């Protein structure tokens, strides 16, 4: 945080200085007000007019100070928040696949949107208010001290008392608030689950049960909210009552001094300073907490994660000319063993088809071999170099995926295939042809330059999948991972795409349920997963003996 603020020392100094302007405005206004009231006691018209003009002048000065204070602050705020956004984003981009996948995308999204917005809304506002309240407090007390030492001390004591009272409530408030927020999170998840299943619920006529359940949760959550509202309001009433009491006491004291000849101007001035500048210091406590909360958010979204202890540095450059090898590879997901002591060897340039019953760990095997998932035991090597030491960027630059879920940029078909790399039209046309995209490209008015709508809304499932296939073909990666790559395509197209994949120079590792007679047999090997172990067959033998 310190680094963030000190990045622009001059702007920061200007900002802090600007935070004191409102203090001056307030103190001057109090003085003008007291003098105007006091003019009744003075009883001279010229003094009255003089005071009135003075008060108006001070009011206008206050507006001037407000404008300059704002302009001294908002530029700094803009630049600083932009920095926060960028460092939060950089933190996410600096993840490796493995650490990125440990949290859901929604968490990152919430960091970049909700958390940054909360920080933007709260941080500078509370900072300003803390500086303002503290400045006002100190200056007001110093002024009162010069007039009436005992009154000043009494005021300080009363303000501290109020502060302690509200501090006692603060902890409980924070706790209830947290409970409230976890409750509503749970409620949201529950709602989303129920709505996702509403079709099934209705088809099976159990929606009544879930309706009652949902209504009960609504009632529960609203009751919690009521508790919170009554508690905070009650607390506010109590502190409000105490400050009223203190105000009455101050009034009575000052009025008694009035009997002894204290002028109306000074009486008003002291009362105003004490009531509106010193007493509100109780409100600073929650602000401090908010400031702390903002800082916690900042740390959460920008602090880089410490490397796991004992992590091996990824220093070996990517180099693949012979084989990928797994020895004694095991992987468990939440205590459930998925892969057990797997031994396999992928020779460069060969095509491997992974088969196995559903739930047998095919996708996991693919994730481990494509470095998307770590946390395995046993050895996994690329040309003899352990995966954990291979430079990730170099590895990623040489692999491609064809998965069922396709991500599309809101950009042209061209850029979605090339992923913003330069390419000649003829080459791209050939790629599109191979991926079965030629019809789509031809049917769109602007061909390859046709823009896709948000996340490919104007494409069918099969078309989306073909874009991902085109990407992989275009990239000419050395290693291609395919997970049910033709599942949303019809027979004819699926067969054509399968043929294209088999004709590539890349080493291919594909998971597929589909069988295209006459094509699927052209894989070199079949890796069959049974009970967490891998059995390797030559494809020709497999399709002849083991059958489909």
């Amino acid at each position, binding site marked *: 945080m310190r680094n963030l603020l000190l990045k622009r020392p001059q702007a920061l100094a200007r900002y802090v200085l600007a935070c004191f302007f409102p203090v001056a405005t307030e103190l001057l206004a109090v003085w003008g007000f007291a003098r105007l009231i006091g003019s009744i006691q003075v009883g001279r018209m010229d003094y009255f007019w003089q005071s009135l003009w003075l008060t108006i002048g001070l009011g206008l000065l*206050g*507006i001037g100070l407000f404008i300059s204070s704002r302009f001294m602050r908002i530029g700094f705020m803009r630049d600083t928040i932009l920095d926060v956004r*960028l460092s939060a984003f950089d933190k996410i981009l600096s993840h490796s696949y493995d650490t990125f996948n440990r949290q859901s995308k929604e968490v990152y999204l919430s960091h970049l949107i909700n958390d940054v917005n909360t920080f933007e809304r709260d941080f500078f506002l509370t900072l300003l208010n803390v500086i303002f309240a503290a400045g006002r407090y100190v200056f007001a007390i110093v002024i009162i001290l010069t007039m009436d030492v005992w009154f000043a001390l009494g005021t300080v004591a009363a303000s501290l008392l109020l502060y302690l009272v509200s501090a006692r409530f603060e902890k409980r408030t924070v706790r209830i608030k947290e409970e409230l927020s976890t409750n509503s999170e749970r409620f949201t998840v529950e709602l989303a689950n129920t709505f996702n299943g509403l079709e099934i619920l209705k088809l*099976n006529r159990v929606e009544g049960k879930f309706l009652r359940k949902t209504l009960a949760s609504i009632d529960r959550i609203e009751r919690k909210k009521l508790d919170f509202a009554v508690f905070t309001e009650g607390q506010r009433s109590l502190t409000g009552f105490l400050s009223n009491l203190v105000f009455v006491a101050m009034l*009575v004291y000052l009025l008694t001094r009035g009997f002894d000849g204290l002028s109306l101007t000074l009486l008003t001035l002291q009362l105003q300073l004490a009531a509106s500048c010193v007493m509100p210091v109780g409100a600073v406590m929650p602000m401090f907490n908010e400031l702390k909360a903002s800082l916690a958010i900042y740390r959460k979204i920008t602090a880089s994660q410490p490397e796991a202890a004992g992590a091996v540095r990824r220093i070996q450059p990517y180099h693949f000319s012979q084989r990928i090898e797994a020895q004694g590879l095991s992987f468990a997901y939440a205590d459930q063993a998925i892969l057990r002591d797997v031994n396999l060897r992928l020779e460069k340039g060969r095509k491997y088809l992974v088969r196995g019953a559903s739930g047998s760990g095919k996708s996991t095997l693919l994730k481990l071999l494509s470095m998307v998932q770590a946390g395995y035991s046993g050895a996994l090597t690329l040309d003899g170099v352990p995966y954990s030491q291979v430079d990730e960027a170099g590895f990623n630059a040489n692999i491609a*995926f064809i998965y069922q879920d396709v991500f599309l940029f809101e950009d042209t078909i061209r850029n979605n295939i090339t992923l913003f790399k330069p390419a000649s039209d003829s080459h791209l046309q050939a790629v599109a042809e191979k991926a079965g995209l030629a019809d789509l490209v031809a049917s769109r008015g602007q061909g390859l330059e046709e823009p896709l709508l948000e996340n490919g809304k104007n494409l069918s499932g099969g078309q989306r999948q073909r874009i991902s296939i085109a990407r992989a073909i275009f990239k000419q990666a050395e290693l291609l991972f395919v997970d049910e790559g033709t599942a949303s395509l019809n027979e004819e197209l699926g067969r054509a795409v399968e043929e294209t994949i088999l004709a590539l120079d890349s080493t291919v590792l594909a998971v597929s349920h589909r069988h295209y007679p006459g094509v699927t047999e052209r894989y070199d090997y079949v890796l069959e997963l049974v009970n967490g172990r891998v059995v390797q067959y030559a494809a020709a033998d497999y399709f002849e003996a083991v059958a489909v």
Partner: protein
Amino acid sequence: MKKAMRRAWPLLLAVVAAAAIAAALEGLLAIYAMHAVDAMFQRDRAAFNETVRSLLLVAGGLIPAMLLLAACRGWFKRRAAVAAKVDYVRRLFSKHINEFQAENNAGYVSILTNDCNTIEADYIDGIYACVVGIINFGVAVLVIGLVSPWALVAGVVVSVVSAVLSGLIAKPMQRHQAQRSEMYATYTAYIKEALSAFHIIKGNDLTGKVRADYRAKSSAIQHKGYLIDRLLTWMISLNRLNFVLTFIGLMGATVFMGLKGIITVGGVILIITNVERLMNPLEKLGESLPKIFGTAKLFARIEGTLQNRDDHPETVAADRLDGALHVDGVSFSFADNDVLRDVNLRLEKGGKYLVVGPSGGGKTTLLKLLRKYYAPQSGRLLLGDQDLRAVTKDSYFRRIANVEQQVFLFEDTVRHNLTLYKDYPDDMLSMALDRAGLREFLERLPQGLDSLILENGKNISGGERSRLAIARALLNRADIIFLDEAFASLDASAARAIERTLLELHGITVVNVSHVSFPDTRPLYTKVVTVKNKGVQVA
């Protein structure tokens, strides 16, 4: 929804009463303070002491009044919020499935969370603020009027002018805020995309490009915020100028009256300290009323998500589906997009039908028509000789079973996920489990049928999910089983075993919609229906 919230009105009366008591006490406090000041100026110790006693007494009475108001407010808000949400959820549950699914689920969730929060803040709190504001205003009028009717008139005029001015000033701000919130929507969409593309970004060295894009978009957002802040500075300054001139003017006038002896010193102080009580409620009203009216659009939009467009009366209950299901000259289109044109198909009772065809050819639409999710735009669906449109959904759903590719699981036991909270004898359960090929899965689970399925079915594989859905259908003893790509995540041998089981079911109609078919099970079907080019061919 608004109508349902009327149930909270009685509590609003309690709020009115509590607020009146609190405001009256505060008014008294102001009046005693005035007397105390005047007593001091008249050098009357006895009157002063007596006033101070009353002052303390009233201040003491304020605490229970404030607590009562806080409690009433809480009760009112709770009753209103619960009424709104309960009404929404109830009506949402009674929506037709197809119309429910026409909108994104996230939208409904967002209505129940974000929009309901807005309603709470703008509508419920707005009404509360208006009611309390009016009462406080009334008390302030009484208190000031007591001292000087002239000051009251001046005070009211100044307050009204000030409230109107700040209302006018808020207008251009709202436009800017709306623009910014639009920018935020696209910004959020962009970030979502970028996050889902993480492995694509990393794998294709797009980090630099994405970072630059993000920087540009973030910078635009922050700059817009800066422009708003700048504009806001001028707006607030104008507002302050208005306040300074009117408030100081009023103060000057009051002090002037004090100087001329028209009112006492205590009166001057009372007016000056209470003018705020005139201005604050008006300002609150100025803030709250546009918000309350602003929710009208929101209410309309929320109502819109609850409308059932198709409200054909359903009068006939189907006890057993004995006859054939007959698709008679049915056409269907989404907006301008024809999906099915003049389709004729007869599904005999107990028949087994394989529905195949290319993706996007209309298979799913045909299935949804058969499931009575929507009615055809022309032609009829006949159940025996009964128009399906007139059959009640509840009775029809009782007779059909459905197996989807995406199987929905509850965070509950395996048993409840199978039975969907109905009671079945154990032998029936056992048979369904065997037929669906779930025996092995169950034996692996530590607590068998009573094991919990974790959130989102994390501890159950895709194939096991499909089998669970098939077991559900078998348990249901339905007359028709609809399969929608039900075998897509099963490996071939498992798929075929289950398919055979289903095809052997006697007297039960099976409609299997699938893009894959196995040559050896294909002959077991009564008919193979090919859906393509907006029509069907039966072979």
